[in-house]
């Protein structure tokens, strides 16, 4: 079996004002070759800290890891040679030309100029950035800049790429476009991708497997489909005219296929069903037959908040 990342008990403790703060409390994880793994968690959960430890940007205070075949502690330079890292902070100076930044970055890997230029142009073309070689990085749009960061991260043809919050701050169209590019990294180059995100839809759309981190520990792990099952599907919120209707509506809703126990609060009823799109027409028809008039209805796909609520028993906003 080809293991790309194997971490055991990875830990990071900070010293802040004399107190020690555990940012990451001992993480075990395995990533196999060719996988796209999503590392999902709220801001401050320890995602970026874990990622930086795996990228040699932060020394772990405990535990061990093998990344791309090299030991993190004993041979950090070996790890650096084989991994690519795309930070959420960017990678280029606004005043520099994109091509210069690519060439300069390649030099630090000992790649000769001809090879660097050839690879850089090819990668730019692959990521739909054909005419940016001579442009200032500061003049690129957010989406172009993020793709340029990815080109930089791939210039030494790493087998493993770390992407930190790749789509933060991008508009929906650039996001979708970026996701396609990330998928093709794996599909066309066979690159293993490890990405962090706090967006459920991003983790869902991209990952073969998701690791959920909270408070410095991994609380759940599985394929997007398996995790969503644990969240028990889509949330339906019914608003009725008065509490009497709400009580009756809750009884009817409870009979839906796969529904959980509806929660009634004044004249609002909330419940979860495996597939909201299919359940909704049935529910509305049943309500009409019982003479109940719903004045509002919402269907929500599971969000990170729902995943969290189910896994940790508390909301993200708490």
């Amino acid at each position, binding site marked *: 079996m080809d293991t790309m990342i194997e971490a055991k008990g990875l830990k990071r403790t900070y010293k802040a004002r004399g107190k020690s703060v555990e940012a990451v409390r001992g993480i075990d994880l395995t990533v196999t070759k060719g996988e796209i793994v999503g590392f999902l968690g709220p801001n401050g959960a320890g995602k970026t800290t874990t990622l930086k430890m795996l*990228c*040699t*940007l*932060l*020394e772990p205070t405990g535990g061990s890891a093998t990344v791309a075949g090299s030991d993190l502690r004993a041979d950090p*330079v070996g790890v*650096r*040679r084989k*991994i690519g*890292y795309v*930070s959420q*902070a*960017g*990678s*280029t*100076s*606004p*005043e*520099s030309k994109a091509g*210069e930044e690519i060439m*300069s*970055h390649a*030099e*630090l*890997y*000992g790649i000769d100029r001809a090879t660097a230029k050839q690879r850089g142009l090819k990668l730019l073309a692959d990521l739909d950035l054909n005419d940016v070689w001579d442009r200032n990085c500061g003049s690129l749009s957010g989406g172009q800049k993020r793709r340029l*960061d990815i080109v*930089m991260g791939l210039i030494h043809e790493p087998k493993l790429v770390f992407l930190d919050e790749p789509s933060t701050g991008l508009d929906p169209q650039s996001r979708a476009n970026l996701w396609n590019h990330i998928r093709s990294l794996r599909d066309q180059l066979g690159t293993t991708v490890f990405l962090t995100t706090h967006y459920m839809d991003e983790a869902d759309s991209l990952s073969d497997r998701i690791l959920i981190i909270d408070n410095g520990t991994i609380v759940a792990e599985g394929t997007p489909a398996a995790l969503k099952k644990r969240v028990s599907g889509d949330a339906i919120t019914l608003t009725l005219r008065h509490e009497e209707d709400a009580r009756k509506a809750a009884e009817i809703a409870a009979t839906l296929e796969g529904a959980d126990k509806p929660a009634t609060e004044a004249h609002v009823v909330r419940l979860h069903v495996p597939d909201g799109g299919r359940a909704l027409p049935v529910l509305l028809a049943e309500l009409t037959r019982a003479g109940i008039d719903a004045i509002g209805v919402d269907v929500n796909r599971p969000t990170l908040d729902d995943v969290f609520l189910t896994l940790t028993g508390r909301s993200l906003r708490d």
Partner: protein
Amino acid sequence: MTFFRDTWSIFARSMRQSLRQPMWVAIGLMQPILYLTLFGPLLQRIAATSGFEGDAWQVFVPGLLVQLGIFGGLFVGFGIIAEWRSGVIERQLVTPASRNSIITGRALRDVVVIVVQATVLVGCAFLMGLRIPLGALLIGLVLVALLGAAFSFISNAIGIATKSEDVLAPMVNTLALPILLLSGILLPMSIAPEWLQIVSNFNPFKHIVEALRAVFLGDFGNPIVWIGLGIAILLVVLGSWIGARTVAAQTR
């Protein structure tokens, strides 16, 4: 050696950025040129007072050169904070490049910029009447380069450690003022009252200024020349050690 290759690469990239914005080099030159044209003529009147050796330019220009080396280096930390913010530093740290090269390459760029500024400054002083031996000019440029390197390392180290302009600015000012006042950069310390002379003896930069003044007067054999050069070299060693440690501490 990967250190030299990486340092060259980081230097070349930084140099390219500086060449793209020659305005900053010009702005850095403004201060010493203003001193030269607006303060220098004043000095010529005072030069007749006791304690002054040589003409006003031979006393004043060494001070300005030392000032250029110190201040030219001290302010570069703002640049590295901007680079950190745009992700460039982290991007370089994640490569197999030598840690040390990341700060040394930048310091070399600063040295080149400062030496160019120093050459322009001496050229202007020549037009205004400064006459010194060629050896003095060379030693002057070497001293400025050493000072620039030392302060570039220190400023970049503070910048990369604090990552905040709001912290760097007061630190630079706090460092700069006593160095300036106690080094006899503007006026030679030999005309100061005795207590001030004693205090200034503890300021290493005073000895560097005096070394350069001796050289400008053609007094190459004066032991102060070696003391000044020795102090400057020591400062570079200290600065590069602090710089290297700070970069390495980034991943700790």
